[in-house]
């Protein structure tokens, strides 16, 4: 199937099987390798991207179903106010260890903050429980989301 795909505000002409997950289109066709493969079944969240601002697991979303919606990946999330603040907070609090899951963590966290500028612990649990971190950076992820929230302008 041939169609246009908008990723990080840029339009790509893609020719790929209809059922191919967005993850593999991003990585293996467009060469955008910041979005990670972890499980292939929406269990770990490493592949999280935004589609029209909503966090989705790109490993189970056939790219053909994206249609004209806008995809944002870790490579482009700094163009969003929430994404920029989350990345800043991640650096300030030294969240990352191996870093492999952190693209997905940052995408989930920035989608949360865009939707809910002052999330409670329960909000953080609900939004982030789909993202596994094997290095165990959860304590810092929670703290960094709160820090980013305190820096976020109110809507």
């Amino acid at each position, binding site marked *: 199937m041939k169609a246009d795909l908008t990723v990080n505000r840029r339009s790509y002409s893609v020719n*790929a*099987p209809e059922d*191919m*997950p967005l993850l*593999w289109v991003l*990585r*293996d*066709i*467009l*060469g*955008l*390798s*910041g*979005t*990670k*493969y*972890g*499980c*292939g*079944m929406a*269990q*770990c969240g*490493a592949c999280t991207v935004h589609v029209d601002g909503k966090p989705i697991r790109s490993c189970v979303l056939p790219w053909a179903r994206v249609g004209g919606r806008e995809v944002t*990946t*870790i*490579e482009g999330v*700094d163009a969003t106010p929430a994404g920029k603040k989350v*990345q800043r907070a*991640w*650096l300030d609090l*030294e*969240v*990352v*260890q*191996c*870093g*492999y*899951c*952190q*693209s997905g963590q*940052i995408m989930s966290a920035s989608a949360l903050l865009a939707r809910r500028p002052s999330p409670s612990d329960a909000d*953080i*649990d609900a939004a*982030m*429980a*789909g*993202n*596994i*971190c*094997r*290095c*165990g*950076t*959860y*304590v*810092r*992820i*929670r703290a960094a989301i709160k820090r980013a929230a305190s820096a976020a302008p109110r809507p």
Partner: protein
Amino acid sequence: MNRPSRRGFLATGAAVAGALLVGVEPARGAGARATFAPNAFIRIDPANRVTLIIPQEEMGQGVYTALSQLLADELDASLAQVAVEAAPPNDALYGGPKSHMQSTGGSTSIRNFYTGLRQAGANARAMLVQAAASQWKVDPAACRTADGEVLHDASGRRLTYGTLAARANAIKLAGNAPLKDAKALRLIGRPVKRLDAPDKVTGRAEYGIDVMAGRIRVATLAQSPTVGGKVRHVDPAPALALPGVRQVVVLDDVVAVVGDHMWAAQKGLAALAIDWAPGANGAIGSAEIWGQLRRESARKGVIANSVGDADSALGQGSRIDAVYEMPLLAHATMEPLNVVVHCSPGKCELWTGTQVQTRAQKAAAAAAGLQPEQVVLNNHMLGGGFGRRLDTDMITVAVRIAKQVKGPVKIVWSREEDMRHDVYRPAYRNVMAGSVRDGRIQGWTHRIAAASVSLRMSGKPLVGGLDKGSVDGATELVYDIPNQRVEYVHVEPRAVNVGYWRGVGPNNCVFAIESLVDELAHAAGKDPVAFRLAMMGKSPRAAGVLRLAAAKAGWGSPLGHRVGRGVCVQNVFGSYVAAVCEVEVDDHGDVRVRRYVAAVDCGLVVNPDTVVAQIQGGLIFGLTAALHGDITVRNGRVQQGNFNDYRMLRIHEAPAIDVHLVRSDAPPGGIGEPGVSASTPSLVNAIAAATGIRLRRLPIDRDILAGRKRA
């Protein structure tokens, strides 16, 4: 930070070999060596680029940053002006001082390189100072250094290191330059920001799996689901009929499908009906594995440590006999195994992340039928190591596949393939007894039965039948126990291969020891902290962390119904850690850890924030296994395959963690693993305090805690 590019690796390789230096700086002419490379760890070029070559692998533990701190501090370069490069495979230059092998594991990086890298930085700095002094015709003692420059304050002159590079090459030091006084250190001991973090929050960090993304073919594989099994038959046609599938590679125990992208490769592999001959392991399951371990643990083992007369001492006072068991575990690194390989006549080039650069190079050479010098290994940061990438099985399989493929190919394990073909943390069984008289442990026996990882990794028989790694943490207790005996029983692994797993031997030993000590304390009617402290007269550092952790955790303050605190203390990997776990257990047997409080004395600290991060992460890693980790086998096949049935701790289950560091001038200890071994005993001890139920087997059994089943 500079990403270690292929070009960077070649240049580094040339630089350390020495002779080819001029070749990588062709513009400089043949005579002078313009690039200053005083040792295997530092390179300064005329443009004042300072490159630090890091022998150890970055896998999240912060080693790029910490080792850079050691070099840059003594060199007097600012971290902002240095680039970090991964060292190429070279045991002679980059091997550890004891192993003489390049390896990142066993919490050894700081222990192995603390002094050596400081010395490398100090010597380079001294050469640069002498070069400047000779150029200015002044006393070197009148010069000082700062931020990559030599300065002569009396005359106001200054030169960058880059300007001095060519002249510094000619300097011969009479001996090692003195190291900085502790007060003069600017980077060591400070919470310097991680050098790898900016690339990791923007998606720019390049792991092995990201190499040449979108530009090369991708393969995925099915290895024999049983160890020792073979492909009986497979018809490649259904895969080849699919769009994007380019090739089916059939080896005797592996089938791989090469496609334009991972999706084509996966669809192709799924389309194949592979008929496997299961081999000798095809009938083995968990019942057989545990039956064998339990049977063999009944026999006497090889003596690992013996003090006094343990058997007589066990006959006096009140005695507890207990058996503790730990399951097989998978590593489950977030980045599934992957290797990019390009085989061509007389050459094999790899791009991957490995904890053992030279072993990986040798494994690739053996699989390719080449000499190690014909293998170029481009090492990348790891999306998690935890010991999995201390092994080279993935390199061997990848090269075997790639030999059949024209051009570079990226071989990616699916999560299921990764999990089902791991080298698993061995299952352990600890047969123990302890006796208490007058409030102290008098007799102690500990028999550890397990498969030996070192036997498989080294291929050499165990010296005297003893696997030292399996008894690590059991032979040198923090307690003064007058009569003790520690034994090891080697049990051949069945159906699965075993490997090193973050925390290795101490994970098991500390769990068993600190569980039994707790049981003995409770049986003697003693407070678990006071009971331990009374036996720690010869371990002041252990007593120090235990007191600190207890105080910070509010040890002894009241808690609610089915809430408890548990404690443990250990001296492993050269560091002392005490942990207090606070847990609540509901009537359904669900366990919620509220908080860990850890106190750490790891000697001299290079980066305190990294130490805290490693303890936080280590505790979570251990807690994950204690709550959820259990690899089981049926018909020779590992049953778990993904995160739905091999669960990881998630953020809503993650406790608060407080880490307190003890200031210490002792030699640096390891920090990547001690958090893991401290997590589990403090947890089961807390569960016992909360419920009165003692769990002697992991993972924790909710049925027992809910009263649905007996312990």
